């Protein structure tokens, strides 16, 4: 191997080129005039239309220039086959590792039933870990979910008879029979949907087992390459004349690579976590699914509307959601609503709801007290109490200084579903057929609108203002408006698992963005041959590596290297 007398970098073309006997050499003044990697050539259209290009920076010593062939070769268009056919074993393994299905090893030749049974799980695994199948499953899940938002959920069958009639089917075939038979009226708990999700989960597991785990084993095989051929076969390759491996190693270390040196060869990698993170993503998804399944089968839920000042027992409110639901001791706890109140903005709109709750255990001892609000639930013994709703339960009034009376309020639905409550104070004989009285309406706890016997507007009073109002000769004082708080209660043993899954999923998804870059180098005389590849950041990798290689110092005094003689390549 002669040491070439060149000032700049010498190009390396992947070994396959060498069969093409390339001698095209290009002379450029400086590299700096071509800040982006300079592309020699040519693209080759594969059958599926994807293309591959090779970039290389060319500058060869004058010795090598075959001037006669130069003109010819300039016109040579080099056809580069795609690299995935490269013969290296580790490469093939790796390609599979990145998601494509792995074919199972051939079944054992035993032709007895036992052998078949032994082979069956493998065959199922192979089918399940098939990538097209998994993609189809994902499409089906997405389509079913979309359908679930288009079809109104949870209505009575009569609704669907009307909406999807048989004599006028949607799209020519979709009738209520489809909806009800397949359970699309309750899509997200229908067997079809849950079955597809379960199948997707099974595919996830199979893929993780047959495709992703082997990546871990392959990782052990990634190591030094001892032939320049193998190094030049990489997606990126370059040659540094008059450089030393040690310098390169230091520079790579500075760039965050893990560097291993062994004799004349170097192996460095970066972002290994990025290769393993997809396994983590899948495992995290499985964790979320498991947690979700536990939530669906093992939780209790309930909601209750309690007027201020009253009690309820937690166990009376909660209902089980599935066969795994088991009650706990804290179900005996009694909840007392000490107070329910709202905060308002200056404009009069509600800004927050608060319920002051006290929890009493079986013996009547207060075990906890907390004022909950939306976004700030109460947690006790595995039970969570949420502030979710409210209503008006009663008006406390005095009539001609008698009382106070509690008038129960009823929700009215007049204009849409905005909250409106009303009550009625009969005047005169309450048993007569056309009883008349004073009506009181309220939208919130702030102000009560009063109407006289004729239905005419009489005035507005605030509770607690103690300001009497005269209606039809009666002096009415609105003492208080008593609200009830709407609480949701639940126990959900799945939440910790789901949260663990969430955390893992966020972390591993982020790590998956990292690109696993590997660099091999071989000292060949005073020349260092470098090859590298990366699995994600294929666009930036050559550029970044070029920048790193530019920093490698050039050895001015050519020291004769003993290593070069030992080289096989």
């Amino acid at each position, binding site marked *: 191997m002669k040491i070439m007398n060149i000032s700049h970098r010498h190009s390396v073309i992947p070994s396959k080129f060498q069969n093409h006997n390339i001698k095209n050499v290009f002379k450029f003044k400086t590299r700096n005039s071509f800040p982006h990697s300079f592309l020699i050539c040519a693209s080759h259209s594969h059958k599926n239309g994807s293309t591959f290009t090779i970039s290389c920076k060319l500058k060869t010593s004058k010795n090598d220039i075959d001037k006669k062939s130069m003109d010819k070769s300039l016109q040579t268009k080099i056809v580069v086959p795609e690299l995935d056919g490269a013969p290296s074993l580790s490469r093939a393994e790796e390609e599979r590792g990145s998601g494509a299905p792995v074919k199972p090893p051939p079944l054992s030749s035993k032709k007895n039933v036992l052998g078949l049974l032994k082979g069956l799980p493998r065959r199922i695994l192979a089918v399940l870990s098939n990538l097209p199948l998994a993609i189809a499953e*994902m499409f089906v899940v997405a389509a079913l979910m*979309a359908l679930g938002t288009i079809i109104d959920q949870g209505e009575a069958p009569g609704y669907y008879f009307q909406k999807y009639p048989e004599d006028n089917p949607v799209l020519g075939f979709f009738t209520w029979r489809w909806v009800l038979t397949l359970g699309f009226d309750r899509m997200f708990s229908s067997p079809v949907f849950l079955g597809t999700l379960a199948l997707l989960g099974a595919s996830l597991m199979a893929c993780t087992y047959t495709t992703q785990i082997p990546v871990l084993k392959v990782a052990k095989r990634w190591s030094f390459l001892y032939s320049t051929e193998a190094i030049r076969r990489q997606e990126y390759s370059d040659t540094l004349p008059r450089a030393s491996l040690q310098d390169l190693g230091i520079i790579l270390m500075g760039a965050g690579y893990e560097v291993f040196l062994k004799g004349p060869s170097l192996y460095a990698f970066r972002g290994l976590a990025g290769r393993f993170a997809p396994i983590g993503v899948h495992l995290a998804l499985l964790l979320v699914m498991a947690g979700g399944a536990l*939530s669906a089968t093992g939780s209790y839920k309930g909601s209750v509307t309690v007027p201020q000042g009253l009690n309820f027992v937690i166990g009376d409110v909660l209902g089980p959601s599935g066969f795994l639901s088991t009650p706990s001791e804290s179900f005996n706890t009694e909840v007392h609503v000490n107070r329910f109140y709202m905060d308002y903005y200056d404009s009069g709109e509600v800004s927050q*709801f608060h319920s002051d709750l006290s929890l009493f255990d079986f013996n009547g001892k207060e075990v906890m007290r907390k004022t909950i609000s939306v976004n700030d*639930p109460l947690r006790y013994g595995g039970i969570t109490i949420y502030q979710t709703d409210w209503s008006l339960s009663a008006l406390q009034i005095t009539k001609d200084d008698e009382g106070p009376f509690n008038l129960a309020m009823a929700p009215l639905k007049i204009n849409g579903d*905005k*909250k409106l409550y009303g009550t009625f104070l009969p005047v005169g004989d309450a048993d007569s057929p056309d009883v008349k009285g004073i009506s009181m309406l309220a939208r919130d706890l702030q102000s009560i609108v009063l109407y006289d016997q004729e239905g005419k507007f009489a005035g507005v009073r605030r509770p607690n203002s103690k300001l009497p109002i005269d209606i039809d000769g009666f002096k009415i004082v609105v003492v208080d408006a008593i609200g009830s708080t709407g609480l949701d209660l639940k126990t959900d043993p799945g939440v910790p698992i*789901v949260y663990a899954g969430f955390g893992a999923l966020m972390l591993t998804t982020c790590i998956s963005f990292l690109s696993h870059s590997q660099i091999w180098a071989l000292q060949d005389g005073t020349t260092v041959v470098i090859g590298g590849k990366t699995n994600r950041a294929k*666009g930036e990798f050559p550029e970044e590596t070029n920048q790193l290689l530019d920093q490698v110092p050039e050895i001015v005094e050519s020291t004769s290297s003993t290593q070069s003689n030992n080289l096989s390549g």
Partner: protein
Amino acid sequence: MIFSTLEHILTHISFSIVSIVITIHLITFLVDEIIKLYDSSEKGMIMTFFCITGLLVTRWIYSGHFPLSNLYESLIFLSWSFSLIHIVPYFKKNQNFLSAIIGPSAIFTQGFATSGLLTEIHESAILVPALQSEWLIMHVSMMILGYAALLCGSLLSVALLVRKNRKFFFTSNHLLNLNGSFFFGEIEYMNERINVLQNTSFFSPKNYYRSQFIQQLDYWSYRVISLGFIFLTIGILSGAVWANEAWGSYWSWDPKETWAFITWIVFAIYLHIRTNIKWKGINSAIVASIGFLIIWICYFGVNLLGIGLHSYGSFTLTSN
């Protein structure tokens, strides 16, 4: 008062700058290369970024809460995210694609936000009780950043599809061509221009540029979508955690949630298709284009219908 005036001014400045940037893009597209103009369009995008940032900060100060409580604010935030992606140094080297995508995207979102269509929701609304949480910042900003990145990435994929099937689009679909040609013609032009600049004296078969260009589109669409996918994942998960605090259930199959999940699945499919070398390119681009439509359904469709728990225009404290 001073705040709303300031906000008004900033809205108009940013909108005008984006318009100017697009005009510059158009000029460089139609007329020959004018480097100074191109430079100023870069500066324009940076100014836009600061204007929209100022706008959001102003809104934040005078409304007292993070300005992401309604559709108008989220649209402004979306165009902020677009300009953020534009100035992120990571994509700097490849700005020619992205700026061609981002400029028009930003002006469309901002134009839509400031147009008469949504005047009623311009007013910074009060924050309903369910939104009063620290999770608001995390959840909504992550979602919208995710949408912005995914929109950019899938637009690059759409550009790839248009480029690959150019003849088809020219002959069979004039309407689409009208819409698409400006965008994609521009990107393509930018790319070719840069290539030509670099290799003026070199043999330049058109085919080569074309394939190189398609490969670049494919690659950058993949990287931007991967980034968007991270944001979307974090956004959905933080939303689930928040829902468990506020509504009592981390997942309630609310339409918006469901569509966000569908978006997530579609881009998960995209990422899986990318792992198979044979399907790269056109197949993954088709999936990304489907994803593009689905993001809009998720972002707008569900909001405009005003159904479910996420309809904050008419949200009153109710569960399921």
